[in-house]
């Protein structure tokens, strides 16, 4: 029952070799075994989206997967968004437009938005809001998040 699996998670281009029980959730492995605490746990039952990461380019809720399932996959988390000292357009837009207050839901929103916009750069405003409504925020009331993501989308299309 406490059998451990040796797995390799590639997070933001770096390999982490860890040994974990099968039941250890992906978000726990990312945070605890790999030390990347930027991804947050808000509910552990797949509703709030704070744990959203990119798995092979797709936004997924890392609390709904087990670490062993991500063996050999490419993961991207908020720590990998910036390019060195240069913020990702989404990060810049979030701070420009006051799209965060406590910041707890922010990594989840950033990765969700990054995933959506990378998959579909020309997504319509309506579809964008529809996709963003996957995640919960309790502080901002959402309006500034929408503004920020739209602004970043425009910049990402232009750049």
């Amino acid at each position, binding site marked *: *029952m406490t059998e451990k699996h040796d797995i390799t998670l590639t997070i933001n281009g770096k390999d982490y070799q860890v040994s974990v029980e*099968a039941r250890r959730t992906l978000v726990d492995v990312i945070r605890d075994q790999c030390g990347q605490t930027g991804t947050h746990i808000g509910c552990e*039952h797949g509703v709030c989206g704070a744990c959203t990461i990119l798995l092979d380019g797709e936004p997924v809720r890392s609390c709904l997967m087990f670490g062993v399932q991500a063996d050999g996959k490419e993961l991207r988390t908020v720590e990998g968004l910036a390019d060195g000292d240069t913020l990702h357009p989404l990060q810049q837009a979030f701070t420009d437009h006051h799209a965060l207050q406590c910041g707890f839901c922010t990594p989840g929103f950033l990765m*969700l938005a990054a995933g959506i916009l990378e998959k579909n750069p020309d997504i319509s405003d309506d579809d964008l809001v*529809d996709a963003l409504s*996957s995640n919960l925020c309790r502080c901002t009331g959402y309006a500034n998040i929408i503004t920020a993501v739209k602004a970043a989308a425009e910049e990402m299309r232009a750049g």
Partner: protein
Amino acid sequence: MKPASFTYHAPASVDEAVALLGQYADADGRILAGGQSLVPTMAFRLARPGHLIDINGIDAIRNISVDGDALVIGAGVRHAAFHHPVCDGPLGALLSRVVQDIAHFPIRMRGTFCGSLAHADPASEWCAVAATLDATLVAKSADGERRIAAADFFETVMTTALAENEMLVEARLPILPANAKFGFNEFSRRAGDFAMTMALAVWEDDNGGITNARIGIGGAEDRPRRIAEAEAILNGNAPSDEIFRAAADAAADVVDPMEDHATPASYRRDLVRALTRRACEQANT
């Protein structure tokens, strides 16, 4: 909310998967597909499978194809696959319409069509589609394969006709003819929530008359089903407001809705009435 311990298996083929399922059915061995429904129940420790058989590594079940008069959806096909029509004609359009109301974008990246059916949440959209279209569900075990009609597949809340050692390997939906029309409507509190009730109306337009009507209700009773009384009112008639209202009333009369502390049966009955009418109106556009 950490899950209880389990032994993890990652078979490379369906045969291997069902062999494991057969071996571990007694120890509550379960299939792990998308995990979007199973893993939360494990987090609450309501589900405590001793063995998880992860089928995400099996290539063969990712297929989605047309086989004669059926659309075949493999066990690994995710909700997101339906964002764009997977086949020509009304069926592809219907599935693309319905998928928009399923959960949220990231959930759809992982959750599977067949997983929804096997999970059998009464509020599942794919379950309502399968029941309404009379899908055929293909179950496989170490002993062989069998086909189960949708009407026999959904027994009650979270309960299907699948045996403990059986895996749902594919769902077969009948290809709808070119003259088929459909309308789908669900009501939920917030976008992406489980539907409190949903209605799917499908019929064939025979020179302005309705034939082969299908009215499916999901989310209201303990399992989705076709409402024959409503279909009987539609069949043979031209679409009209009165016909739609009569069919909606009939559906509302015969359903036996679920109840809870916040929602009396009468409320779901009202929803059945309203949504059946709306689904018919949409089919008629």
